[in-house]
């Protein structure tokens, strides 16, 4: 390492050169996780990826070429149409927005959006009158931001407390799938039932755990433009970067076709991952940032995977949406329309995806120990969802 003619690139090559190649034992866990995903082909990857509530995504296995439109770079964060709402106006606006949204306004697609450009789906998404809708979505999200910001600061679970979560996915024409697991808030330990036995295992890092997601939200800047700039940094600037990024995302199978869609997916993923706990102020800032993404729309009259009514917020013309509770404005689910029938070969037989997929964190609770299900959620909702599941299974 003493060569005087060593150039700058060679010097960089010497940095951390002592880091060894990993031992087979070290690689074994990742291999096991891969094999676990590979050996459960009839389940969606989002369920196959047990353990770990993270990184659920829709239609993971759907193949087929994606078609990109030329990426559209919005002309800035669009602060021009963000609304300044005097506090006294909130109630009035709430009534107007909710009436409009709950009235069942169809989610419009933008001109030239995927609905129009993808084969097999033309005509299923009516063309929009974008300006009015954008304004409605911005108002709705501004209202959502103000509502969640006004909440008392929720107490964050302790690092070593256990979070129980039951995840439910429904898909048109298939049985409801449900999955439950436990994760310590710091993400360093997880548990799940396998063949009736509770399996607990340590994680090498808490990366991706509830605490990580909580911090990721808490560390965001307050300014909507700064949030979008940070999101833009993560998702990149080219369609392939957006796709690479979004392939790990639960929010939409449809790859982002613009920086705005990619930013929305990024922010929606942050909120989805923070299912265990989210700082209210950060949640408000994210909603406000979403309001500044051009082309965001809202749709009323939607239901979550467990039958709760919600309002969908979408950046891709209603193809996929983040579902908010119409009263509390908390995230209650995700949904996506399969734009065309697509099938994937699994062990020689095709599995076809079509219709609508919905996902929800059906029950989330802080419990004393893994294996416990102390669920304090609305009993009626659960009964409803159980009946719904039974119906689905009966098909």
């Amino acid at each position, binding site marked *: 390492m003493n060569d005087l003619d060593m150039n700058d*690139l060679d010097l960089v090559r010497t940095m951390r050169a002592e880091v060894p190649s990993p031992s087979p034992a070290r690689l074994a866990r990742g291999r096991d996780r891969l094999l676990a995903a590979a050996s459960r082909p009839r389940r969606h*990857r989002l369920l196959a990826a047990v353990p770990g509530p993270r990184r659920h995504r829709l239609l993971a296995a759907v193949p087929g070429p994606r078609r990109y439109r030329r990426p559209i770079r919005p002309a800035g964060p669009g602060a021009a149409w963000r609304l300044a709402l005097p506090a006294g106006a909130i109630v009035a606006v709430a009534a107007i927005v909710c009436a409009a949204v709950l009235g069942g306004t169809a989610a419009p697609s933008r001109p030239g959006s995927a609905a129009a450009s993808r084969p097999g789906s033309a005509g299923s998404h009516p063309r929009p009158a974008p300006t009015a809708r954008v304004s409605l979505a911005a108002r709705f999200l501004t209202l959502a931001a103000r509502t969640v910001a006004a909440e008392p600061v929720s107490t964050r679970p302790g690092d070593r407390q256990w979070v129980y979560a039951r995840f439910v996915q429904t898909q048109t024409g298939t049985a409801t799938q449900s999955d439950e697991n436990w994760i310590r808030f710091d993400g360093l330990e997880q548990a799940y039932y396998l063949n009736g036995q509770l399996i607990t295992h340590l994680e090498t890092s808490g990366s991706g755990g509830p605490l990580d997601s909580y911090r990721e939200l808490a560390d965001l800047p307050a300014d909507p433009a700064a949030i979008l700039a940070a999101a833009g940094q993560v998702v990149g600037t080219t369609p392939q970067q957006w*796709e690479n990024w979004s392939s790990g995302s639960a929010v939409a199978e449809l790859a982002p076709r613009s920086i705005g869609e990619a930013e929305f997916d990024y922010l929606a993923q942050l909120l989805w991952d923070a299912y265990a706990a989210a700082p209210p102020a950060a949640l408000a800032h994210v909603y406000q940032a979403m309001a500044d993404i051009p082309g965001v729309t809202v749709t009323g009259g939607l239901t979550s995977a467990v039958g709760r009514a919600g309002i969908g917020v979408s950046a891709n013309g209603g193809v996929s949406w983040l579902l908010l509770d119409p009263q509390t404005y908390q995230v209650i689910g995700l949904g996506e329309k399969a734009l065309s029938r697509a099938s994937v070969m*699994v062990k020689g037989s095709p599995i076809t995806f079509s219709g609508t997929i919905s996902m929800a964190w059906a029950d989330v609770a802080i419990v004393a120990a893994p294996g416990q299900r102390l669920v304090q959620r609305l009993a009626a909702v659960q009964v409803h969802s159980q009946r719904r599941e039974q119906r689905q299974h009966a098909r």
Partner: protein
Amino acid sequence: MTAPPRRRAADQDAAGTRLDDAALIERSWHEPEAFAALYDRHAAPIHRFAGRRLGGQLADDVVAETFLAAFGRRNRYDLRRADARPWLYGIAANVIGKHRRAEVRMLRAWARTGADPVTEGHADLVDSQVAAAAVQRDLAAALAALPAGDRDVLLLIAWADLSYEETAAALGIPVGTVRSRLNRARRKVREALGGQDPTSSNQELDP
């Protein structure tokens, strides 16, 4: 390359010929388990690459996530690309990108204190490396200050030994962009070294 025990011939065709990555991926469309052979081929170097950027613990997660993501996307792999390394490194670069703050924090800690959090534990430095420690701190500061896209290009080339073309394919950017990012990154590295003799141990350029 050492690999965990596996079914023999998982990466060979019926005649015993070694399949290229594309053929393995195509096989995994029908036999998902075949994807494990791709893991056995490429997980170790990708782990080391991730480990140099983030430390071993995070590298474990990065590798697992990279291959799970790749597996989920195997149906979209372009089978004309016989070598899957650019594809896998591209996914890995994105997964590593989620830990960007940790990466920069550790580089800054190294620059500030001279102790690199990543290599603590297996630092068997020979004398010349100790002598070059100050240089390395400056380099760490320079890496920390690079825009993420420039750092990705620099490290894919310097640490993962990808070519310009492979780096372009990995990151989904034109080769010309790879060149300009690399030039910019190298210029910053040289500036951080202050144009001094890189093997001199007495320089302390506070970033």
